[in-house]
């Protein structure tokens, strides 16, 4: 398929895909690799890394296995990243599509509403929302979705605005298709590439936001997460560097991989950039 060939031309994008595949594999295999709970102390506390082959990344203050924590944390990060992005994309596409397609007063109202969300700093709003709704995985996911849909709405609005006046859309009006049908079958398929690219980058942002919330102690108390691990380790930064460095690396590598994928998708899907390296 030509799309995959275009994507594969970008070495960085392939590396990103490979890293993400490893992260997904670790997340899925976590219960098999580490059958016990990651909260369970398994060895002596503050075991440094690379000393005991059973605990290659060492243990923390309470003797919990860091490697197990990272494996279980991958599940939380990916889950929250993907679901919150999906929710944000659904909200953003719906609002952007209505605003762009109908224009006029509908557009004005929806865009003022969007700007209302955009003017509040996203992270501060997420903190407030999680604090109000007591921290659990649902409220965190929703809070991240609520603060990240406005850019999608603006993007989709722009795409719809320009596609709406194209002749094939006019033709659909002339043959008698209804507004919602035109939006779904004529315009959306033509606007999907930039949406996918943005969404892929939003997954990375969502993972960072979740980590930051957990770092501040606003994570789900029952789920091990990378941000929580770093947050818990901050008092021991000088005595036990491995408590924060390994979860930090996990975040860095995962976010980097997703960004590489997003850029690769952008290059492959954006017809204007096609062949710019050739």
């Amino acid at each position, binding site marked *: 398929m030509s799309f995959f060939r275009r994507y594969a031309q970008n070495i960085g994008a392939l590396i990103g895909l490979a890293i993400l595949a490893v992260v997904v594999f670790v997340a899925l295999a976590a219960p098999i690799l580490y059958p016990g709970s990651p909260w369970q102390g398994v060895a002596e506390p503050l075991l440094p890394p690379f000393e005991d082959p059973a605990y290659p990344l060492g243990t923390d203050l309470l003797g919990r296995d860091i490697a197990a924590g990272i494996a279980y944390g991958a599940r939380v990060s990916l889950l929250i990243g993907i679901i919150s992005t999906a929710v944000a994309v659904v909200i953003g596409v719906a609002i952007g599509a209505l605003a762009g397609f109908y224009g006029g007063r509908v557009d004005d109202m929806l865009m003022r509403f969007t700007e209302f969300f955009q003017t509040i700093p996203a992270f501060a709003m997420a903190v407030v929302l999680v604090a109000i709704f007591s921290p659990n995985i649902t409220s965190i996911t929703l809070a991240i979705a609520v603060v990240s849909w406005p850019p999608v709405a603006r993007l989709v609005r722009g795409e719809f605005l320009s596609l709406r006046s194209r*002749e*094939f859309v*006019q*033709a659909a009006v*002339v*043959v*008698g298709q*209804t507004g919602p*049908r035109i939006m779904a079958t004529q315009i959306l*398929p033509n606007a999907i590439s930039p949406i996918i690219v943005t969404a892929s980058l939003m997954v990375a942002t969502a993972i960072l936001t979740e980590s930051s919330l957990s770092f501040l102690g606003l994570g789900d108390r029952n789920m091990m997460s990378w941000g929580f691990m770093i947050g818990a380790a901050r008092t021991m930064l000088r005595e036990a560097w491995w408590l924060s460095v390994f979860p930090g690396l996990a975040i860095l590598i995962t976010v980097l991989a997703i960004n590489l994928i997003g850029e690769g998708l952008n290059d492959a899907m954006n017809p204007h950039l096609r062949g710019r390296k050739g």
Partner: protein
Amino acid sequence: MNATTPLLQVENLSIELPAGLDRKYAVENLSYTLNAGEILCVVGESGSGKSMTANAIMGLLPSYLKPSSGRILLKGRDLLAMSEAELARERGRTVSMIFQEPLSALNPLMTVGDQIAEVMLVHGEGDAASREQRVLELLDYVGLPDPASLRHSYPFRLSGGQRQRVMIAMALALEPAMLIADEPTTALDVTTQAQILDLIRRIQRAKGMGVLFITHDFGVVADIADKVVVMEKGLVVEQGTADEVLNRPKHPYTRRLIAAVPHPDENATRADADGDVLLEVRGLRKTYRSGGGLFTRPRIVKAVDDVSFTLRRGETLGVVGESGSGKSTLGRCILKLTDVDGGQILYRGKDIVPLSQAAFRPLRRHLQMVFQDPFASLNPRQTIGRILTDGPVANGMPLAEAEKKARELLSLVGLDPSAYDRYPHEFSGGQRQRVGIARALALDPELLVADESVSALDVSVQAQVLDLLQDLQKKLNIAVIFITHDLRVAAEVCDKIAVMYRGAIVEFGPPGEVFNAPRHAYTQQLIAAIPGRHWNPRAAVA
């Protein structure tokens, strides 16, 4: 210059295309000669390689195209053997070029005077004061009003014709011996085109320049050419003096092209359509407002101003006008693609103006449209089958039946049944326009609005699509509103012609009457501006 050396000699020029395309050469074994004081027209359809030689002369070929053999001799010196620095000296000084789209050829952030002065500056000509003097002279010479203040204008403030004049002034700045004009009037209205052609001819005569004029329009060729080169798929199929090629074409391809040139048969009389009145437009008005904030007054343009006409079943009404005359807006009003500010549109006696979009939707199937741009009017992500069935399905036809109908329509418009499962990008412009027509016909309409439906097509394809439209109209007895900027095309296919000027219909009548006895001054101007009016292509291929 030695009197026996021609100005430009292209000898056996071949330019190879990258592997994997449908032909091996962009141009193959091309030879022609241009003398000083001559206008040589290179004619061909899109993809014939006609612009390629011009780009080769100017050294503007993209990096992946290299002339593989042959010579281009300018005053006896081979341009292909010159270094980039030598070539840069010749450009502008000996040869200069004007392009099709003057807006994209001018720098939008620089005043036109500065742009003309820059040409002289890069060639180290004169000092600031003498350059300034020359700029004003040039602007005056190309017929621009008030050079002293126009010199400080930015390109966006000028009209298309004025921009092209600025381009010509730039090209003339260094008094070149040769001018290359690549479709310089294609983007312009017909009256502006006539003025620019006049200007080019006047300058050419006055300066004794050689002009290489590239065009697709035989009418333009008939107006200005001394010699003609006809190209097809990279090969020269015929060349000779204008009189030879235009009036006694020998090669079958030339004959086919000339036969396809639209030409009004001025003596043809058509039987008046006596069907029922299908559409009656009364006092239609549409005004566009733009800009206008809290403190500024909005700009108001009367796009359609008190337009009235009636259209009968089986009749073709041609709406002719230049860009900005409101002809497209009129079509969009009739299909309710835009709001109307006043007047009535009676379809079968029922006024559709006050209807809401939802109330009008059931009526839409009777009023269909064929769009202008065959590339933009088909959804690139849908198969042809899907495009053709969407309409009937939206109007309540079961999918299986719509599918059957779509396949019938494909054969009706002369497309292969296998087209059903393919995507638009696999088709040529003419084939796509056939799909557009099939889509409109899928709903068995009573009225078809064709908005510039053939203007994006090559002349031979245009003739085929026009034939198809006329054929179908006779077969199905539908009424057609044919919107076009080309009076020749309108005269060929329409029963009645309405000439629009600034939103109003200024002339209305059968084509013979409009052509032979135009009453309104604007119509007279329009008819006088038709390129190649004195040449009868029908007689040439008879």
